[in-house]
C-alpha cells in the first residue's frame, strides 16, 4: 500500500464519517425553524418542548460535525499538497467564503440557540434559530460549489508558475455557477432534509410504539411525514435533472453508474444486478430504452458507453454501479415508508400499525445509506480525475508524505471514529429514551386538543 492509496482511504474515511453529521444539522436545523415557528404562531407549549428536545439532539450532532469537520480543513493540505497547490487559487476561495459566510453564522448563533432561552426574547431567539439553520445551508452551498467545480470545472485557466502549472480563476461567477453546481446543491440539500425528516419520523414512531410522550409525538410525526413527502417528491425531480447533467458533462461517470460497457441504441436501465468487470459485462434486470428516455426524452437515442472512452479514463465500474443503485433503492424504501405512513395517518390508524412503526424507527438509516452511497458513486465515478479532465488523483497527492505516516494517521482516525461514533449513539439513545419534558403540558391536554 502506497501513500496515494492510503491517502484515498483516509480521505474517504474522514469525509464519510464527517458526512453522518452535517445532513442532520442541516435537516434538523430546518426542523427546528419549523417547530419553533409553530410555537411562536400557536403559543402551544408542545411545540416548545419539541423544539427544546430537538435542540439537544442538534447540539450533540453539531459538536461531532465540528470535530470531524475540522479534519477536512487540514486534509487537503496534509495529504493532497500537489492538488492544493494546483487548485488553491480556485477551490480555496470557495472554502474561504464558506468559512466567512457560513461557519460564523452557524457557530455564533448556536450559543444563543442553546443557552439563550432565558436571555433573549422569543422573537430574537427564533431569529438565532433561523441564522443557525441558514448558516448550515450556506455551508452546504459553498462546499458543494467547490466540489462541483471538481466535477465540472469552469471559470479558470491554467497558468505556469515557478511551482509548476496551476489553475487560476478567470471569472469568479463562472466558477461559482459551474454547470453542475445548482443541480448538485439541490440534490444534496434535499438529501439533508430527508435525513432530518426521517430522524423526526423515527423518534416519533418510537414514542408512539412505546406509548410515551404521545402528545408531542403525534404532531412530530405529522411534521416529519409532511417534510419527508415534500422532500421525496422534490428529490425525484432533482435526481432526474442531476442524472441528465451527468450525461451531458461526465459521460464516463454515467456509463459507470449504469454499467454501460457498450454504446447501444434504446439504452436500458438496470434495476438490480452485478458487474462482471473481468468480462466487461453487466448481468442485470433491465428496462429497455429507459435510460435513453430519461436522458434524451426519447426511447431510441443511444447513451454513451465506456467503449467510446479511452480505457485509461474509466472509473471503477462495479463500485460506482452498485452504490448508485443502492442510493436509488433507498429512495423507493423511503418513499413507500412515507406513503404508507401518510395513508394510515389520514385514516387515523397509524398508531395501531406496529409493523410500520418499527420500520419507521429504523428508517432513520435510509437517508444516511442513500447519501453515503450517492457520494461514493459521485466521487468514485469521477475517477481517475481529482479535477475532471484537468488533474488526475494520482497527480494530486503530497510528495513529502510517506506510507507509514499515512498508515499511522488512518489507524488513529479509525480508533477515534469508532470511539466517537459509539459514544454518539449511546448519548443519542439516552437522549431519545429520556424524551422531551412535559413541564407545561399536563394541564393543557384538555384545553388544547391536538388538531391534526
Amino acid at each position, binding site marked *: 500500500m502506497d501513500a496515494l492509496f492510503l491517502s484515498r482511504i483516509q480521505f474517504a474515511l474522514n469525509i464519510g464519517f464527517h458526512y453522518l453529521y452535517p445532513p442532520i444539522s442541516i435537516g434538523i436545523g430546518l426542523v427546528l425553524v419549523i417547530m419553533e415557528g409553530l410555537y411562536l404562531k400557536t403559543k402551544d407549549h408542545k411545540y416548545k418542548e419539541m423544539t427544546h428536545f430537538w435542540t439537544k439532539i442538534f447540539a450533540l450532532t453539531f459538536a461531532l460535525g465540528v470535530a470531524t469537520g475540522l479534519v477536512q480543513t487540514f486534509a487537503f493540505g496534509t495529504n493532497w*499538497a500537489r492538488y*492544493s497547490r494546483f487548485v488553491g*487559487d*480556485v477551490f480555496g476561495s470557495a472554502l474561504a467564503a464558506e468559512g466567512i459566510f457560513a461557519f460564523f453564522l452557524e457557530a455564533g448563533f448556536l450559543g444563543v440557540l442553546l443557552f439563550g432561552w432565558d436571555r433573549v426574547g422569543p422573537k430574537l431567539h427564533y431569529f438565532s434559530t433561523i441564522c443557525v439553520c441558514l448558516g448550515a445551508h450556506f455551508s452546504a452551498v459553498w462546499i458543494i460549489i467547490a466540489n462541483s467545480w471538481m466535477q465540472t470545472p469552469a471559470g479558470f485557466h491554467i497558468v505556469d508558475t515557478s*511551482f509548476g502549472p496551476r489553475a487560476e480563476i478567470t471569472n469568479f461567477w463562472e466558477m461559482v455557477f459551474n454547470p453542475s453546481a445548482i443541480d448538485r446543491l439541490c440534490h444534496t440539500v434535499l438529501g439533508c432534509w430527508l435525513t432530518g425528516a426521517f430522524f423526526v419520523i423515527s423518534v416519533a414512531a418510537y414514542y408512539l410504539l412505546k406509548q410515551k410522550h404521545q402528545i408531542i409525538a403525534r404532531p412530530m410525526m405529522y411534521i416529519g411525514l409532511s417534510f419527508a413527502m415534500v422532500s421525496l417528491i422534490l428529490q425525484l425531480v432533482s435526481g432526474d435533472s442531476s442524472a441528465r447533467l451527468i450525461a451531458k458533462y461526465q459521460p464516463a461517470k454515467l456509463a459507470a453508474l449504469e454499467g454501460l460497457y457498450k454504446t447501444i441504441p434504446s439504452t436500458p436501465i438496470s434495476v438490480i444486478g452485478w458487474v462482471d468487470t473481468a468480462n466487461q459485462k453487466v448481468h442485470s434486470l433491465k428496462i429497455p430504452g429507459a435510460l435513453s428516455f430519461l436522458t434524451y426524452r426519447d426511447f431510441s437515442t443511444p447513451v454513451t458507453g465506456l467503449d467510446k472512452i479511452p480505457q485509461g479514463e474509466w472509473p471503477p465500474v462495479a463500485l460506482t454501479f452498485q452504490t448508485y443503485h443502492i442510493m436509488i433503492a433507498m429512495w423507493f424504501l423511503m418513499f413507500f415508508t412515507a406513503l404508507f405512513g401518510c395513508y394510515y395517518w389520514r385514516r387515523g390508524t397509524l398508531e395501531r400499525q406496529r409493523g410500520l412503526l418499527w420500520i419507521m424507527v429504523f428508517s432513520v438509516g435510509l437517508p444516511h445509506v442513500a447519501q453515503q452511497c450517492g457520494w461514493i458513486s459521485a466521487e468514485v465515478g469521477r475517477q481517475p480525475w481529482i479535477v475532471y479532465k484537468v488533474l488526475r488523483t494520482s497527480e494530486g497527492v503530497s510528495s513529502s508524505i510517506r506510507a507509514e505516516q499515512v498508515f499511522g494517521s488512518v489507524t488513529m482516525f479509525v480508533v477515534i471514529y469508532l470511539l466517537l461514533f459509539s459514544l454518539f449513539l449511546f448519548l443519542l439513545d439516552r437522549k431519545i429514551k429520556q424524551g422531551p419534558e412535559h413541564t407545561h403540558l399536563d394541564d393543557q391536554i384538555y384545553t388544547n386538543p391536538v388538531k391534526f
Partner: protein
Amino acid sequence: MDLPFLWYLVMGFATLAYTVLDGFDLGVGALHLFARTDEQRRIFLNAIGPVWDGNEVWIVIMMGGLFAGFPNAYATVFSGFYTLLMFLIAGLMFRATAIEFRSKQESSVWRSFWDVVFSLSSILVAFTIGVLLGNMIEGIPLNEAQDYTGTFSQFFGPYSIVVGITSVALFAMHGTIYLAMKTEGEAHRVVRRWINGAIVAFVFWYITTTLATLIYMPHMLDPFLNNPPLFAFPLLALLAILSIPYQVRKGNDGWAFISSSICIAFLLVLFSLGTFPTIVRSTLNPLTNSLTIYNCASSEKTLRTLLIVVAIGLPFILAYGFWVYRIFRGKVRLEKSSY
C-alpha cells in the same frame, strides 16, 4: 496595491482573533483539572460554553485563508508538518467532543474521564500551536521544490519545545484572567489564587523564549537592527505584560483581560516583524527555498475576490460576534440548559 500584503494582514487579524479568543478557551481547558469540585468545573466550562464554538471558527478561517490566499504555503506546511498536525487534529477533535459529552451523564467516572480529556487535549492543542510557531521561526529543511525533507523528530528541537511551553503558559494566564472576569463568590476566589502563579510562569517562559531567540535565532533580530524604531514594539509588549499584574492587583479583571489580549497581539506583531515576508523559512537555503507571502500567493484576481469576500463578511461577523458576547456578558450562572 500590494495584494499579498493585504491578505497577510487579514491572516494576521484571523490569527489574532483566534489566539485572543480561543486562547482563553484553551487556557480554561489547560487549568480545568486544577478545579476540585464538579460545580466549579461546570462554572469554568460554562464560562466558555456559549462562545467557544464561534471562537474556534477562527482557526478554520486561518486554514481556509492560507489555502485560498497562499496555497503553496498551505500545501507545503500541511504536508510537511503532517504528523504534528495529526496530533493537533486529534486534540481539537477530543476537545470539542469532551465539552459536549461531559455534561451528558451524571456519573462521576464519566465526568472525570472527560475532564481529563478536555484538559489534556487543550494543553496538546496549545503546545502544538507553539511548536508550529517555533518551527516557523527556526525554519525547516525545504528543498528547491519547497517540499519538506526532514523527519518527525526534527520538529521537536529545544527551541520549538520552549515556544510550545511558552504558548501553554500564555494561554493558561489568559484563561485564568478570563475566568476571574467571568466568576464570582467561591469560584472567583479559587481563580484569584491561580492568577499570580500563572503570571509568574508565563513571564519565566517568555524571558526564556526571548533569550533563546536572541541567542539562537539571530535572523529574527535583523529587521529590528536594520530599522531601529521597530524596537518600540518589544518595549510596548513589555509594558503590556507589566500592566497585567498591575491591573490584577487593583482588581480590574476586565482591564487585566484587555492587557493580556494586547500582550498576545504584541507577541504576534513581534513574530511578524521578525519573520516578514517569510511564512516558513528554509534551513537548507533561506534565500531561495523559503516560503514567502510573494512566492506563495494566489493570483491577483483571486486575492481581490477574497478581499471583497472579507470586506462583505467581516462587518457581519464582528456585529453578531459582539452581540453574542453581549448576551452572555457578566458572571456565569448555571442554568438548566448549561453544560
